[in-house]
């Protein structure tokens, strides 16, 4: 049954059929499939209109810009002359920072996004349990959603004088104060255990504030999935002699695993689009202070491609590894 269903939804719309679907007065128009198709199109109509009106033109423009040599002219906007892939070559081979920062950020993202998912899942499981002060704990874990959004994260560090002071005070703290993770790292290095794995681990520990701050939405999404699991499943498992550990892997994990994909995609995008992301900084720099519009468009398209690649990879991995209970 489910196999057949899958097949029918995968069936492609032929060109002729899709045109006939919207023209009344033929047998295809009157079929159930066409009726449903028309309803579906009506439902997504807002998106279609929005995309065509607001999104398509700027997108195409920016893509054309990335293939052109763009010069600002006084009074008359831009002049564009086609120059093929020169801008892309510039991004990869000439720009001193772009390459290096892209590699760095992608590496950081790979580690941080996995850490964020694991962290938010663990926290959601804990918050889903019954204990005193649960409402308070949930409210506190919602704070990152607010604090990491919009104007708030940058506002205090954008103050130039403050940054200066911050730099000085950090230096002092590093030279005199106790930095526990650094001390531990030194200790491990002395005892001959400072391998690559530990480096990653320490990187995560140092970034734990960032990770928690980035996992606000993910916690809520997981939490909503967890609380939708019917308690009778656990009761049945308990009666059958299932331990809590087994129940976690056989019930909890499979039931929320569809949400893994949503969260993973959200985490990746969130990381790629953060204002303090150094690739974004570079793109803005090239655009607004050097006025190299063509080059910066090329950079953002490369960046976009990398993000898309990552989303594709994680979608394939997760949807292969996750059982779907929904169909």
């Amino acid at each position, binding site marked *: 049954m489910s196999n057949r269903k899958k097949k029918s939804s995968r069936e492609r719309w032929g060109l002729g059929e899709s045109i006939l679907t919207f023209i009344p007065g033929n047998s295809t128009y009157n079929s159930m499939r066409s009726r449903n198709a028309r309803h579906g199109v009506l439902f997504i109509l807002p998106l279609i209109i*929005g995309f065509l009106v607001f999104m398509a033109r700027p997108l195409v423009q920016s893509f054309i810009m990335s293939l052109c040599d763009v010069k600002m002219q006084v009074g008359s906007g831009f002049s564009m002359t086609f120059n093929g892939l020169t801008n892309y070559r510039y991004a990869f081979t000439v720009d001193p920072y772009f390459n290096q920062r892209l590699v760095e950020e992608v590496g950081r993202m790979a580690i941080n996004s996995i850490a964020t998912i694991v962290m938010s899942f663990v926290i959601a499981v804990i918050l889903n349990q019954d204990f005193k002060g649960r409402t308070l704990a949930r409210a506190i874990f*919602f704070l990152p959603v607010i604090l990491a959004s919009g104007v708030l994260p940058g506002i205090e560090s954008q103050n130039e004088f403050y940054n200066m002071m911050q730099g000085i005070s950090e230096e002092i703290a590093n030279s005199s104060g106790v930095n526990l993770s650094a001390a531990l790292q030194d200790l491990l290095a002395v005892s001959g255990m400072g391998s690559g794995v530990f480096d990653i681990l320490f990187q995560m520990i140092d970034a734990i504030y960032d990770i928690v701050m980035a996992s606000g939405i993910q916690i809520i999404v997981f939490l*909503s999935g967890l609380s939708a699991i*019917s308690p009778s499943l656990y009761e049945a498992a308990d009666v059958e002699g299932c331990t809590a550990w087994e129940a976690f892997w056989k019930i909890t994990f499979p039931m929320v695993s569809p949400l893994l994909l949503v969260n993973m995609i959200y985490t990746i995008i969130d990381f790629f689009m953060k204002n303090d992301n150094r690739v974004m900084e570079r793109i803005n720099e090239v655009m607004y202070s050097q006025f190299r519009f063509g080059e910066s468009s090329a950079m953002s398209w490369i960046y976009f491609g990398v993000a898309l690649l990552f989303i594709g990879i994680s979608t394939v991995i997760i949807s292969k590894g996750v059982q779907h209970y929904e169909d």
Partner: protein
Amino acid sequence: MKTEKSSFREKNKRAGGYLLRANLKKWTISIVRGLLLFGLCFMIIQPMLTRLCTSLMEEKDLYDSTIVLLPRNVTLDNFRIVFDLTDFPRSMLNTIWTSFLVSIFQVASSTLVAYGFARYDFPLKRFWFGCVIAIIIIPPQTIATALYMNFASFDVFGIITAIRGSGLNLHGSIVPYVLMSATCMGLKNGLYIYMLRQYFRGIPKSLEEAAFVDGCSTLHTFWRIMLPDAMPTVLSCFLFSFVWQWTDLFYTRNFLSSMSIYSNQLSTIVSRMSRYFSSNSDVPVIVPVGRQQQLISIGVLICCIPLIILYVFTQRTFVESIAMSGSKE
């Protein structure tokens, strides 16, 4: 007391040590959980607490190195200053109604689109879903300039020009942004579509089939059956949308710059400080960094507090009611 203790021992003995083990396990779990939660919560809340403490300090307390957290001279004067600096009642009211309006449009359109994607099969479906992913991923900054120029003489494929002779100038009004929200192009709209679609796909198809057999029309099915079931997810999307709109700077700066919106006021608060303080004393004043930071922190606090209150009141409906409506097969 003693009898109770012995009875526990006796019970434990009779159960072969099971009772003791179970109790120990329970206690260990709750202690570990408590420690973990306390640590993480403290980490999140500590900057807020610091802000709250410094916000109550008088200016001279800021420079007193013997004062770390607790203010010696408590004052609420700082709040008054920040209220003046951010044009408080007006900017807050504007923020409230614009956030409300925009998020309602965003969530309504996203819900419709998500339902269409979850349940219907139509030509070019994959292409349109690719567009949804694209609007999630593409940073609004990349299209901002082009959009801005677009709205200087707004037009839909030359239709408006044909009617009025020229494009509409929509700069400085809320209309373009509402239009964008209503057509799923607002702030993080693709994400809501994605989340809601995921939820709609989880609702058993048999519900709609039953409705169809009973002669329920498509819209009616959506309105009466699917929407009530999806309400918790819709609500959480609404909450996200509201919060993000509330703190958003990018769209606010581009589309609502003529209005006094709190996030915009907050982002430019530093530039207005020296003018504000010098107008009081007729002498140009350079506001010290510490004082600037203090006032910014207060601004951040004022921005967060309404949202936290909103969350505390709505979290029961949108996190916990999902369990009630769960009709998973």
